């Protein structure tokens, strides 16, 4: 019956305003909701905190979706780039920077927190440039392995150079905001992070829907063919690394400048944290920026909500200890469940769990077939290709 209703609704939409417009309307409503949210006096600052960190992870996931889902560069180093942004911003603000021979001297006094964040972002971009260049030759598993190695090396260095980086005590960045009133501060932080998310999404959306985006997708589909069509694959491969590194570097530097958290710790750069980012993107849809962002937001919320499952017993039944609710501590189980969701999403809904919604609103069937019955002969299967010349 629900399905029937849905179909009728669908037809009505198709005849009338069009799904796409409806989609924009819904998106607009969501944005309005987020803009209005801090003004809801019934909500506490805590909800804002949760949202702020949700926004941060949404940036992380969606930029990873751009890197891996759209450009096809399967990197596990995303968290490390974020860390570079945050650490460099923190260290610059604390210790300054001296290039005596070049006549450049940045002293901690002379630099504002915004300046530090900018430097952190640029540093992340520079490292992204180098790493992107190194990765030109590597594909798929090798690329993943290399980026894991890179991010582990970075984490170990941050942890071990205790005197300089604060080790696992973390590094506290110079606060971006100097607002005494906690409520106001939180309000500003909320809008700052949300604005950053929207800005990042817009910029990434622009990129994806610009020639560059088309080139990136062409590269993902078939690097050789793209190259034969005149796409400078070297440039765009490096570019996408630099671009996403700068986005996450910026997000990291801002988030840890006492907007979402007041210190960055090396544990944040662990492979586990990276894997969560990836899982969010996979669950939300790793080829869609909005999907990945929403996936991160929703997954984090669910992981939080599923910490314990409390089922109030009906009919006045009681547990052995006299309470009337069954409490299941799901501490580790929720991650196991989360992993299962990810595995099944991958196997059966490769475009993410949110895909049907996005697809419906997009007004046409994007990539409806999950599987391809018609196989493209490539790689190992070249031997099967028709009468090959060489």
């Amino acid at each position, binding site marked *: 019956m*629900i*399905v029937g209703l*849905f179909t009728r609704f669908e037809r009505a939409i198709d005849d009338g305003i069009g799904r796409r417009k409806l989609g924009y309307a819904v998106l607009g409503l969501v944005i309005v909701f987020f803009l209005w949210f801090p003004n809801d006096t019934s909500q*506490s*600052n*805590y*909800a804002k*905190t*949760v949202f702020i*960190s949700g926004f941060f992870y949404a940036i992380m996931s969606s930029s990873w979706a751009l890197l891996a889902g759209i450009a096809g560069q399967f990197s596990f180093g995303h968290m490390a780039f974020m860390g570079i942004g945050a650490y460099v911003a923190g260290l610059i603000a604390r210790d300054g920077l001296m290039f005596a021979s070049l006549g450049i001297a940045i002293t901690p006094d002379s630099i504002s927190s915004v300046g530090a964040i900018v430097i952190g972002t640029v540093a992340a971009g520079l490292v992204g440039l180098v790493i992107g260049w190194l990765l030109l030759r590597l594909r798929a598993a090798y690329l993943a392995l290399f980026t894991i190695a890179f991010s582990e090396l970075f984490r*170990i260095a941050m*942890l*071990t150079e*205790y005197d300089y980086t604060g*080790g*696992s*005590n*973390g590094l*506290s960045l110079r*606060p971006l905001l100097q607002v*005494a009133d*906690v409520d106001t501060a939180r309000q500003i932080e909320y809008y700052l992070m949300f604005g950053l998310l929207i800005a990042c999404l817009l910029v990434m959306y622009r990129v994806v829907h610009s020639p560059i985006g088309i080139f990136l997708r062409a590269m993902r589909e078939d690097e050789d063919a793209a190259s034969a069509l005149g796409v400078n694959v070297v440039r765009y491969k490096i570019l996408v690394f630099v671009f996403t590194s700068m986005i996450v570097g910026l997000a990291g530097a801002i988030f840890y400048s006492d907007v*979402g*958290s*007041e*210190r960055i*710790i090396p*544990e*944040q750069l*662990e492979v*586990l944290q990276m894997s969560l980012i990836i899982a969010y993107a996979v669950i939300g849809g790793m080829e869609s920026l909005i999907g990945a962002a929403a996936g991160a937001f929703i997954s984090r919320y*669910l992981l939080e*909500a*599923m*910490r*314990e*499952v*409390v*089922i*109030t017993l009906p009919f006045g039944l009681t547990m052995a200890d*006299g*309470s*009337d*609710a069954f*409490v299941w501590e799901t*501490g*580790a189980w929720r*991650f196991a469940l989360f992993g299962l969701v990810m595995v099944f999403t991958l196997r*059966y*809904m490769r475009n993410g*769990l949110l*895909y*049907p*919604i996005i697809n419906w609103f997009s007004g046409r069937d994007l990539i*409806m077939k*999950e599987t391809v019955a018609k196989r493209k002969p490539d790689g190992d299967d070249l031997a099967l290709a028709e009468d090959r010349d060489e």
Partner: protein
Amino acid sequence: MKGKSTLASLVVLLALVALLPFSVIHADGHCEFADEAIKIGGLVPLSAPGSVAGGVAMSWAFNRAVDDINADCGVQIGDQNHRLQIVIGDSEGSPERGQAVVERFILEDEVHAVSGVYHSAVGLATMGILDANGIPTVFSEPWNDNVSANGIMEYDGRPPRNADGVDHIFRISPASSMVGGVVVDWLLAEGVDNVVIIAENTDYGQPAAADEKARFEAAGATVTQINVELGTEDFVPILSRIQASATVPDVVRILVTGETSYNLTQQMAELGIAPTVDTICVTNQFAFQSEQYWENVPDGNYCTFNRVGIIPSLFSDIAVGLNEDYFEEFEDIIPSFAMASYDALHILADGMERAGTISDGAAIAAAIETTDLELSQGRYYFNYGNHNDSMPADDGMPNYLWHQWPDPVVTMMQYFEQGQSSLDAAVIFPEVYQTHGTGYMAPGEMP
């Protein structure tokens, strides 16, 4: 077909959302409780990268304390009895998460007090918010010297967010300097002079190592410090390095926690570095959990370890009862942070009763400052606070004594039989606590 299955998965997703927690309502038999329960936030690490084992033990202790207090008809404010309720939050060992959870405590759960905290980084990161919101807080495990000293010190180079003169943060775990002091005093008394310190590169290991190193060096001993990463399994290369050094170390001091400390201690024993006749082994307080210790460090006999918390032979009735229950649950001896967590709730409850309020943080904090309670770890009191005219610094005392329980019992213990329960292990220092009438025993000696 396809559409239906995607629809189905959406339904499943929605069903998951619907499983959000409901609140738990207790109804205890013999006491009349007021409607408003006292909520206490318990901030403990329950997922990696935090120390999950520590978090599990602490939350067990919280629940146990809540049960005990409620069985005793809760907290009496005026003529009403308020039921105590613990809200456990998972810090994941991360300052960022810790902050978020504390905010949730304050704003969402509207807790009246907070306790717990295992990782110092979490303690440092959450103090500001807790204090600014006037939440009376008794930390039960972070060791970093700066925890709780916040009220009188500038914290990380910036003024406290809300400097209204009232500091709500207390600590009943020892500051790392206090622990280090005991270990160093003992070792110096043993006449060591060539010290190797192996420290994990964390917020626990590094400050502790720095502090102990300074003390040793002040006494003229040479110190070699070796940092290791938590999670390392194989220490043989670095231990071989110690073994190959020109002079045999007099002591190897391990400032490493968890399974990593077990691996390290066991490999050290297997390689014959320490404990030997020449070299004293001082391992981490985790050795006190003797079941786990002997399972993981079968060769660790004659290792000494520092023990925080009252020594087993002096266990009060409360401690004995706690320990029995803990043993039943975890098959091991209760760690100090579980006892401290248990005591922390009692201190908070007592403070509230004496202040006569459950919501006036300043009043409760003022009441806690004058705590005088006998609990599982001993008698609790706080020397320095707003009730005291002089500041620690005025008395030539270290700043960390602010709102710090000055008497956590820190002892040196030693196993002298393999598989020995830590309840039977010898307390060897300070002398007043010696249980077997003897100080350090070199391998082979018996009390």
